[in-house]
């Protein structure tokens, strides 16, 4: 029987697991990270849009701060969020961006002076402040009032993940690649580690640790089409569930996105519609105005997704070998605009569909995008197991919280009965 001992066992080697490992290692504890794939290939790499932090460096972010970020997030959650945790988050986000900047992430920076941007299909001239020159830039994203999303050109996820992974290597944190935790080891309410399968040799090894953390990402692959990587199957969350003790929260909260390409599910940037793209059905008809006369293609993501599915259910989908879909038409935006402002869209169409979106329509269909639910924890990330059969078990004085599935939960031993 093979046993590997460590202080902190982390299941998942994406941004969350890596940062958690760095934190624990710096405090003098041994860490082992388990990952299905080399960490630099984790799904975190797909986070292209950017990361929200209220730095308020750009002119369209002027006046932004933690309070505004807090309000946007709580509203966005439709009041499902734990507000204490949101406060913790919005206060720490700027620190997170700045820490990553010091560690080497090449965040795009503000250039003083005038520049032209497109807002709602119109050209607008923005003037960036002198005192902001060289600070980290923010872009418009997710419809927030203030521009708050920090980014690295068109590859934020990649840049962040590589810097984080390299820092973990600098800390000499071992990552056991191509290993999979298939069950947690637990007894009397305490988690002791995991039974881990080596995907290359098939060997089963017991990893025993003082604390075990689950940072395995979401579960997009529960669905037929998802923007998520193939490894986003939710297995770490599932093995926590299978202890019979830990719980998962709000699993029914699943976010869909209206325009991933079909059938691959690769995300097409929101800007394609924002800049004036249209949705068409099997007859070539632009159908959104019939459903949403006011906002048409620019109604909220959920609404656009719904209308598209409704329309397909009516028999207006385009049939193909892989199922039904609709069309996104951006030909009207013109070649120059597409190749300069929608470069990602152009490349995705070129590589994955072999089509030229300046001339052809793009097959799209709404797909699963984000799993809001995950293992239930308190504000420290601990799983308060047995909280239902014995409510008094919740540690005194803590506010219970839910950290979304892209983050972390970790198994804590409960005080014995």
């Amino acid at each position, binding site marked *: 029987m093979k046993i590997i001992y460590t202080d902190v066992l982390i299941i998942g080697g994406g941004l969350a697991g890596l940062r958690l490992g760095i934190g624990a290692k710096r405090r003098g504890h041994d860490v082992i990270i388990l990952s299905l*794939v*080399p960490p*630099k*290939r*984790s799904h975190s*790499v*797909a986070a292209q849009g950017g990361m929200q932090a209220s*730095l308020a460096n750009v002119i369209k972010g002027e006046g932004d701060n933690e309070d505004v970020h807090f309000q946007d997030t709580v509203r966005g959650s439709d009041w499902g969020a734990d507000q204490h945790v949101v406060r913790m988050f919005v206060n720490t986000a*700027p*620190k997170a*961006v*700045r*820490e990553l*900047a*010091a*560690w*080497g992430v*090449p*965040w*795009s*920076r503000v*250039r003083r002076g005038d520049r032209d941007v497109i807002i709602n299909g119109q050209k607008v001239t923005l003037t960036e402040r002198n005192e902001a020159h*060289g*600070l*980290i*830039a923010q872009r418009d994203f997710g419809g927030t009032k203030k521009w708050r999303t920090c980014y*690295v050109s068109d*590859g934020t*996820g*990649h*840049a962040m993940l*590589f*810097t984080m992974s*390299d*820092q973990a*290597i*600098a800390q000499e944190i071992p*990552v056991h*690649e*191509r290993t999979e935790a298939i069950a947690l080891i637990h007894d009397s309410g305490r988690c002791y580690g995991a039974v881990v399968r080596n995907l*290359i040799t098939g060997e089963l090894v017991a990893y025993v640790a003082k604390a075990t953390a689950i940072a395995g990402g979401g579960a997009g692959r529960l669905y037929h089409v998802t923007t998520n*990587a*193939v*490894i986003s199957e939710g297995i770490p969350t599932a093995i926590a569930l299978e202890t019979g003790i830990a719980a998962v929260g709000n699993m029914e909260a699943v976010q869909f996105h209206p325009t991933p390409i079909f*059938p*691959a599910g*690769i995300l097409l940037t929101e800007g394609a519609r924002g800049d004036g793209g249209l949705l068409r059905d099997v007859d*070539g008809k632009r159908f959104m105005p019939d459903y949403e006369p006011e906002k048409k293609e620019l109604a909220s993501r959920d609404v656009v997704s719904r209308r598209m599915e409704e329309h397909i259910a009516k028999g207006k989908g385009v049939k*193909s*070998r*892989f199922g039904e879909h609709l069309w996104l038409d951006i*030909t009207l935006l013109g070649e120059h605009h597409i190749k300069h402002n929608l470069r990602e869209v152009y490349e995705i169409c070129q*590589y*994955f*569909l*072999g089509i030229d979106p300046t*001339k*052809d*329509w793009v*097959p799209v269909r709404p797909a699963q995008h984000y799993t809001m639910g995950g293992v239930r924890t308190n504000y420290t990330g601990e799983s308060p197991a047995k909280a239902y059969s014995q409510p008094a078990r919740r540690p005194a004085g803590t506010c219970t919280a839910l950290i979304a599935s892209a983050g972390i939960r970790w198994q804590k031993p409960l005080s014995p009965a």
Partner: protein
Amino acid sequence: MKNENHTLRQLKISVLRFNQEPGSAPRMQTYEIEEADGMTLFIALNEIREKQDPSLHFDFVCRAGICGSCGMMINGRPTLACRTLTKDLDSEISLAPLPVFELIADLSVNTGKWMRHMSERLETWVHLNGDKIDLTKPEERMEPELAEKIYELDRCIECGCCIAGCGTVRMREDFVGAVGLNKIARFRLDPRDKRNDDDFYELIGEDNGVFGCMSLLGCHDVCPKKLPLATQIAFLRRKMAAVGWK
């Protein structure tokens, strides 16, 4: 203007298979599959595994050309399979695993192990030299152009295609390859990394480093991210030679 239907072909995909089980030997196995509009090798290989042969090994993760998992030899050329469209290939397609890397099985190789080793060896992280960071204070400034230049080199996804296409690494097992040299170029450009050229010379100023490159530049030809490997390697060689002559 609508997409036109392409003529549907019957594809013959031949895969170099070997699962290293005792008694087995490498062999070519051919699968037949009906082509579909927009079919990529990601779609094709998954369909083959699901419907015809559950024992076929391959690695896809993001399937969107950004994670670097699916590097393989496609008709003799290393590239990313997930974004290779079958319509751009002949109906007879030959697939093999990337050479140089340790084989796991069939089309799956252990690039992760090789890359981690390279990262440790070349210390591919920003060396802060103990500088403390105050996270409540605004970030250190950087010129926008410099940030863009660093990103340009940071874009490497460690897919291993450059190594598979490299002549030198076939002769020198410990050659760091274009991926390693590009990393050094990236960190060298970054003012947050406190290392200087003498430090970098310690890492790559030898025949398994920048002086081993024979300038065949297969790396530049096959890089899926179109990194400027030719210019970066040449530039780095000059800089390192200057250190060597001191």
